[in-house]
C-alpha cells in the first residue's frame, strides 16, 4: 500500500469526523500559533537590538574602565582611562590599522535650559574626530573644532531630538543655553553657545544618540570636577577606536590590550568590539526567545496529548474496520501507517493554520507600544520550519502508540468487535 493511498484513507477518516478532527486540531493550532507569535516577539527584540549595535558601525572597538566593586554590592567603574591612553593608541607607526581614535566622557543626566524651558539629556565630552570615528556627523552649523578644544570653548552641538525638544522649530545655532549638573553643594552650572545640530541617527546600543549634547572634552573636564580621577587626571569614560577594516578586529584587540597593560600595569579596563556586544546581546535575547518558545511549546504538548487521546478513542471505535482491513490483506505496517498519517495530518493541518494565525498575531502586535517600548516582531523562516517540524513530530510522537496498538489487534477479535 503506497503513501498516497494511505493518506487518502486517513483524510477520509478525518473528514468523516469533522467536528472531532477540528477540535483536536485546535489544540495544535493554539500551540503552534503561540510558538510562532511568542518567538516572533523574542526574535523581533533580538533583531532590534542587533540593528542598534550595528548602527554604530561594525569596525569599532570600545575601551572602557573595568567594573569594580564599590562596596555595598554596588558596581562602579574604575576611574582609570585617561586622555593619554587614547593618544597612545592613535599611533599609526605602531598600529597601522587604526583609522581613528576618540576619547569621550559622559554625564548621564544634565539639564539644559533656554528661555525658561528645560530638557534633560546626557552631556558627552568629545574631540573633533568624534564625528569621523563614530560616523556620526553634524547636520546644521559646525562640529566642535580643534580651536574649541584648545581654548576649552563653551560651545556645544545638540543631538537632533534634544534640539527639537528644547528649541522646537527654531534654529538653535547661535543660541545660548545653560547647563546644570548635580544638586545643592555639588551643583555646577555654566552657559554655552550652540554651534551645531547632529544628523538624526536613531537609537543604538549606547543609548539614544539623538538625545544628547556634545561639548568639547576639555571643557567638560575643566568645568565638571568629578570627571577627574583621584590622581587628578582627566577621566575618560570610553575610548572608541575605528579600524580600517573589520578583519583587524582580533589583532587590534590583542595589540591594544597589551599596550594598555603596559601603560596601566593591571587589567583595569576592558575592550569590546561591536561583534562582542552583538553576541552578548544575542545570547540574552536568544535565551528569551527559547524561553518564550518553550512556554508556548507546553501548549503544543497538551495539544499532542489531546491527539493521542482522540486517536486511542478512534482506534477503539474502528476496531471492526481494522479487522476488515486485516482480513482483506492489510499488514501491520499498513494499519500503523494509516493511523500515524491520520495523527500527523491533524498536526500538520493544525500546524499550518497555527502558523498563519501566529504570523497574523505577530503582524498585529508589530509596532504597538507596550508601556513605553515599541514592540517589534519578526517571524523568521526558521521558526516557521521549526513549528512545522515540531507539529509533525508531535503527531508522530503521540500518534505512534495508538497506531501501534491498532496494528497489533488480532483480526478475529477485531472482526467480532461490535
Amino acid at each position, binding site marked *: 500500500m503506497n503513501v498516497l493511498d494511505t493518506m487518502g484513507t486517513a483524510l477520509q477518516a478525518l473528514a468523516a469526523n469533522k467536528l472531532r478532527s477540528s477540535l483536536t486540531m485546535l489544540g495544535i493550532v493554539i500551540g503552534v500559533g503561540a510558538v510562532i507569535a511568542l518567538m516572533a516577539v523574542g526574535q523581533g527584540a533580538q533583531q532590534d537590538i542587533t540593528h542598534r549595535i550595528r548602527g554604530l558601525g561594525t569596525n569599532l572597538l570600545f575601551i572602557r574602565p573595568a567594573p569594580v566593586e564599590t562596596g555595598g554590592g554596588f558596581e562602579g567603574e574604575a576611574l582609570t582611562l585617561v586622555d593619554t591612553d587614547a593618544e597612545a593608541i592613535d599611533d599609526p607607526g605602531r598600529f597601522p590599522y587604526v583609522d581613528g581614535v576618540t576619547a569621550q566622557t559622559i554625564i548621564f543626566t544634565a539639564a539644559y535650559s533656554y528661555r525658561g524651558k528645560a530638557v534633560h539629556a546626557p552631556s558627552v565630552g568629545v574631540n573633533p574626530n568624534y564625528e569621523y570615528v563614530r560616523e556620526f556627523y553634524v547636520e546644521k552649523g559646525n562640529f566642535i573644532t580643534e580651536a574649541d578644544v584648545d581654548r576649552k570653548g563653551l560651545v556645544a552641538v545638540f543631538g537632533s531630538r534634544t534640539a527639537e525638544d528644547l528649541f522646537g522649530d527654531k534654529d538653535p545655532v547661535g543660541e545660548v543655553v545653560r547647563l546644570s549638573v548635580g544638586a545643592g553643594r555639588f551643583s555646577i552650572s555654566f552657559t554655552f553657545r550652540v554651534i551645531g545640530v547632529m544628523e538624526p541617527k536613531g537609537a543604538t546600543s549606547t543609548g539614544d544618540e539623538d538625545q544628547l549634547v556634545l561639548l568639547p572634552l576639555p571643557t567638560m573636564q575643566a568645568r565638571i570636577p568629578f570627571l577627574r580621577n583621584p590622581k587628578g587626571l582627566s577621566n575618560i569614560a570610553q575610548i572608541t577606536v575605528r579600524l580600517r577594516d573589520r578583519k583587524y578586529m582580533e589583532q587590534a584587540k590583542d595589540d591594544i590590550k597589551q599596550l594598555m597593560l603596559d601603560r596601566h600595569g593591571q587589567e583595569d579596563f576592558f575592550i569590546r568590539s561591536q561583534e562582542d556586544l552583538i553576541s552578548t546581546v544575542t545570547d540574552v535575547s536568544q535565551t528569551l526567545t527559547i524561553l518564550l518558545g518553550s512556554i508556548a511549546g507546553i501548549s503544543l504538548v497538551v495539544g499532542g496529548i489531546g491527539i493521542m487521546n482522540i486517536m486511542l478513542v478512534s482506534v477503539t471505535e474502528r476496531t471492526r474496520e481494522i479487522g476488515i482491513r486485516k482480513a482483506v490483506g492489510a499488514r501491520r505496517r499498513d494499519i500503523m501507517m494509516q493511523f500515524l498519517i491520520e495523527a500527523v495530518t491533524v498536526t500538520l493541518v493544525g500546524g499550518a493554520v497555527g502558523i498563519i494565525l501566529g504570523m497574523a498575531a505577530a503582524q498585529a502586535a508589530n509596532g504597538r507600544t507596550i508601556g513605553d517600548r515599541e514592540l517589534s516582531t519578526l517571524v523568521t523562516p526558521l521558526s516557521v520550519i521549526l513549528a512545522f517540524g515540531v507539529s509533525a513530530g508531535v503527531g508522530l510522537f503521540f500518534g505512534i502508540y495508538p497506531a501501534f496498538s491498532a496494528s497489533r489487534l488480532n483480526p*478475529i477479535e477485531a472482526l467480532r468487535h461490535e
Partner: protein
Amino acid sequence: MAMIRLRGVSKVYQIGSMAVHALRPLDLEVERSDFVAIMGPSGSGKSTLMNILGCLDKPTSGLYELDGLPVSSFGEDRLAEVRNRRIGFVFQSFNLLPRLPALQQVELPLIYRGIPRRRELAARALMELGLGDRIHHRPTELSGGQQQRVAIARALVSNPSLILADEPTGALDTATSHEIMEVLSRLNQERGMTILLVTHETEIAAYAHRTIRLRDGAIAGDERNGSRRPVRLGTSP
C-alpha cells in the same frame, strides 16, 4: 494435488487454567474448484476451522498447506499477503466499511496489493454482480442482499483461489439467501473458484457439492451431496 491440505491440525485455547480443545487434531483435503459446506452445532469448531483456513488464526499444532504453501509456518505479514491474494471472505454481517461507497469497498484488497487499474477492476467486479448502477452507493443506501453482493465483489476482485463464506445468508431473508447462493454457485461453476461455506441450514448447504459435519472439534461426517447440482467429475474423495 489438493488445494487445501490439513494434517493433524488442532486448536487449543487456554482459558485460565483450563485448556479448551476447539479443534481436535484433524485431517482434511479440499480439491480445487470444489464447493464445500461445513455444518455443525455451535461450539463444534466451525468458526475455529474457518479462521484457520482463512489464515486469520494459526493452528496450535499440525500442518496447513494452501495452494502448496506451508501457511501454518508463515508469519503475520506473509499471512496477510496470503489473505490478500488467495482468499476472499464473505461474512454473515457483510463487514463493509461504514461510509465508503461500494466501489471503494471493492477496491480495498487491491489497495493493499498495490496494483494499478484497481478502479476499473473494482467496477467490473461490481458489474459482474449486477451492481453496475450502485457503485457510488454507501452501505446504508443498499439493501442486505446488495450489501452482501458488494462483499462478494470485494472477495472475488483479487481473483482468489478460495472463497470463505461464513454464514453468508444468516442475515438475509429466504429469497435473498437463495439469490446470494446462486451467485456463489455461479462463481464456483463459471470461474472455478473453490468455495467453503459455513451454514446451519441444510437448504443452503444443499448448494454445495460436499458437506462436512463437525461435532466437538472433530469431523463427524463427510459426504458428497446427491444434490440437484451435478457432482463434478474428478473431485470425489
